[in-house]
């Protein structure tokens, strides 16, 4: 295996919001690194600041302090270079599936014909051929997420920021889309940071899992997940799976055994 190269470093990031009872310290001195072609899951209690981290990396929020380094260069943010999939699918209701997929390429000023051709390829690959002219409201939740995923991937971003992309879906659809995501990441050589509440999902998909403590968020521990599986489903059958699962539950103070 080639030595791991660091792609993104987040260092000593802090952020507080003005709340009713004074400032709320959401991030305080948070640091972590992401390697090239990494698949990192971030888990942590609700409201600890996971979305806030993404918003800072994506350039939607300015941190109060700290630095972001990308491939050796210090940068403000990765605005325009990340594929950010937010907690909601956020499809534009007035745009068709095709229109939604093309959104990013349009803002980038890519030639319409070229963009459409590319979009058709993606739609076909994700099993959405024939839905080009459908409006989002007429699609199922799983289809909508796939459209959102294509919209993210088609921009060819350096890093994918996925904020609980599958949390609103039923288990079967989620399993299916996890597979779709894993394949896509492999095909297009993407780096992924995934925020999830689902420990099961984190273990099945990632190479590393970052566990955050409650507010203010700090990195509690980073687990390397050493499961060589081709799909998220087979990963769940791996002998090491339940060990990782239990460890992470313990890390998050979730009781796995009932004490009588």
């Amino acid at each position, binding site marked *: 295996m080639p030595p791991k190269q660091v792609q993104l470093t987040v260092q000593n990031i802090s952020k507080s919001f003005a709340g009713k009872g004074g400032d709320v310290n959401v991030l305080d001195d948070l640091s972590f690194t992401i390697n090239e072609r990494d698949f990192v899951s971030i888990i942590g209690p609700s409201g600890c600041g996971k979305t806030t981290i993404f918003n800072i990396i994506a350039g939607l929020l300015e941190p109060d302090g700290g630095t972001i380094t990308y491939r050796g260069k210090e940068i403000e943010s990765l605005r*325009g270079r990340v594929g950010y999939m937010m907690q909601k699918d956020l499809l534009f209701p007035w745009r068709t599936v095709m229109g939604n997929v093309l959104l990013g390429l349009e803002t980038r000023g890519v030639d319409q014909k070229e963009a459409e051709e590319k979009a058709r390829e993606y739609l076909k690959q994700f099993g959405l051929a024939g839905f080009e002219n459908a409006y989002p409201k007429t699609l199922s939740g799983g289809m909508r997420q796939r459209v959102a995923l294509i919209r993210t991937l088609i921009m060819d971003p350096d890093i994918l920021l996925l904020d609980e992309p599958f949390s609103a879906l039923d288990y079967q659809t989620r399993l299916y889309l996890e597979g779709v995501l894993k394949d896509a990441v492999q095909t297009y050589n993407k780096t992924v940071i995934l925020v999830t509440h689902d420990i099961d999902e984190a273990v099945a998909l990632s190479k590393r899992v970052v566990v955050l403590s409650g507010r203010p968020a700090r990195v509690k521990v980073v687990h390397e997940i050493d499961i060589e599986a081709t799909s998220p489903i087979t990963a769940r059958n791996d002998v090491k799976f339940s060990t990782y699962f239990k460890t992470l539950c313990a890390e998050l103070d979730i009781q796995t055994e009932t004490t009588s």
Partner: protein
Amino acid sequence: MSLVMSGTSARKKTAPRNSRKKRSTFDTTLGRAVLQLLAVAVFFALWEAGVHAGYISAFLMGSPSGIFATFYKLILSGELLSDSWYTLFEAILGFIIGTIFGSLFGLALWYSVFVAKLVEPFIVAINSVPKIALAPIVVLWFGTGLISKVALAVSLTALVALIAAYQAAKDADVDLQSLMISMGADKHQVFWKAVVPSTLPSIIATFRINIGFGLVGAVVGEFISSQRGLGHMIFLASSLYDLNSVWVGLFTLMILGFVLYYVIDIIERTSLPWKQATTSHQVQV
């Protein structure tokens, strides 16, 4: 209205399965039309009968037979048509100018929170003036011709459009805008691709109100001073106690408003196809 109509066509398709819900034979488009026309006919018949029996004064109220005779006469002479066209033209022109400028200005306020906050009290102040009260000066400024009526219609419609557009732009989904920013979009792209499309339903919803205001502006302008138009005709006829002509003018205005309403309805449906898929079905309780 569109809700009810498309609701029926949807129900028709699933009628066999939906049969547990009883529908009377009149609850179809044709059935309702028959009932509606019947109601109008009964109304006029009672009116006419009241006049004949002496309960209703034909001098103060007019009579349906007189109204129809006047209507026929005015159509033949061409007066009614030319007056209608004139008023319609003023109303539509005022509506279009007022809506376009109002909406554009309202949308543009999205660009600068500073400017928006600065002008907000002025907009509220201007809006709180009953615009009809401006009619006399508008006539002083713009004369007794077409322009003063259009100006009055503009003054009535522009602020409605402005406030609706500004509010809708403020309410535009922040997450959609954030998403675009994360993609590297600039402010203009966010404006045109995220803000403007999401304000369209609200802006088009103001068309319904504003087309009525357009007619109000035109007619009130004609009341004050003019040589033509339905407002002029009504004003003149009422000063001569010619009630039948007054009614002809009023009913013609009603028909104009009615037709315009459905034109707006068609505009709404064709310009917002993405809304049709979901909102055309009224929940059946």
